[in-house]
């Protein structure tokens, strides 16, 4: 095959047509999966909301109020309703104070603004150190499998996160107390602990400051 036989327009045409075909196919698939992808993302949010809110029957993912905390961070509040009645709020904030990047914290709040449950929905902390604060992971062991599978319902416990339950945000941030009686921080992961604490505080405080607005819902 010498250089002479090369037909440049033909090559261009072939590749062009092929690429166009590919693009067409992809647009088709992209449009047809678009709704499924959206649903999948929504499901993710709903799953998270389901963990922090009491049982609800609306779609809190569609009823959102965005407020600013006193630090200027945007806090997203999802409103949980049952039979139309507001039964709780879920506040979500992204804090940049994480050890290695942003941490997304979601807090379920009672109507009076006290903390119900805290979960961390996204983080890039050091596995084993930072993630000890952030993860609520059920560790199945082989024993559980052997014993047979009654699944434990509800959230996996995390002492650091559970510490906030029933607390109300004061005017000052929670101080990190390491390994004392009040456990909300962990040696070796002070930064993560502080970041999570700060985020919970920001959500709680914003909630308290805007209880009236929140109680009206997003309408």
């Amino acid at each position: 095959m010498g250089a002479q036989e090369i037909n440049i327009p033909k090559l261009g045409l072939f590749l062009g047509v092929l690429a166009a075909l590919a693009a067409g196919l992809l647009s088709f698939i992209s449009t047809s999966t678009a709704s499924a992808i959206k649903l999948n993302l929504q499901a993710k949010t709903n799953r998270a909301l389901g963990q922090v809110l009491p049982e609800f029957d609306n779609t809190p993912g569609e009823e959102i109020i965005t407020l600013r905390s006193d630090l200027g961070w945007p806090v997203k509040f999802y409103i949980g309703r049952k039979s139309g009645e507001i039964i709780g709020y879920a506040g979500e904030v992204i804090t940049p104070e994480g050890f290695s990047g942003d941490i997304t914290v979601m807090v379920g709040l009672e109507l009076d603004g006290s903390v119900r449950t805290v979960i961390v929905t996204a983080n890039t902390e050091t596995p084993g150190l930072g993630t000890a604060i952030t993860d609520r992971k059920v560790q199945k062991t082989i024993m559980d499998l052997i014993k047979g599978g009654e699944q434990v319902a509800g959230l996996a416990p995390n002492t650091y996160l559970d510490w906030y339950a029933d607390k109300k945000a004061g005017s000052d941030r929670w101080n990190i107390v390491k390994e004392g009686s009040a456990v909300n921080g962990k040696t070796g992961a002070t930064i993560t602990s502080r970041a999570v604490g700060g985020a919970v505080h920001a959500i709680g405080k914003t909630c308290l400051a805007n209880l009236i607005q929140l109680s009206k819902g997003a309408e």
Partner: protein
Amino acid sequence: MSATKEFTKGLWKDNSVLVLLLGMCPTLAVTSSATNGLGMGVATMCVLMGSNIVVSFIRSIVPKKIRIPVYIVIIATFVTIVDLLMQAYAPTALYDALGIFIPLIVVNCIVLGRAEAFASKNGVGKSILDGLGMGLGFTFALVALGGTREFLASGSLFEVKLIPGWTTDFMLMTSAPGAFIILGLFLAGMNALNIRKAKRERTSYKPAGLDCNSCNICDMTEK
């Protein structure tokens, strides 16, 4: 070669990871747990089969000079499809964990390598078998690696703790250095097997090695 051979060679004899040493990036990056390895392996296998089928279909009409770009376009298309489908239907945790490496299946040397070395020369049926075998081999290797790393890190497999007393995770294994080291140990294991085999059969032994030639890319991208 018989059809079964086309299928089985990818599983062990020509295993893409452990023998051919192709597609190292996803191999190392996503094998921090057995589950991730499985996900990546299956995704790659889908792309591999899809591209093998199409390439084998159009093999006679592709102008030789542009066959590599053509293959790449085909592969990229399949990768995007897999990406979109996973986004839509796979568990979000898995999709998040595999992250950037799904698009990177495009440049996984195995996929292109099989398209060039096999599908472009063989019929559709054989190409499917080849893709399936290679893909399963890849998946197998990834799961093995992921499983080993997961076990050494925390004594668990597929997120099930096998040794309940193991409380502190050995993070080295799930970190980047651990990936390299464990893969190195795997290759050494393969070498040890081959040495023993060579001794038994009194043939010469060559260590598994990756050099420019393994992926054939140089030869393929003719100027």
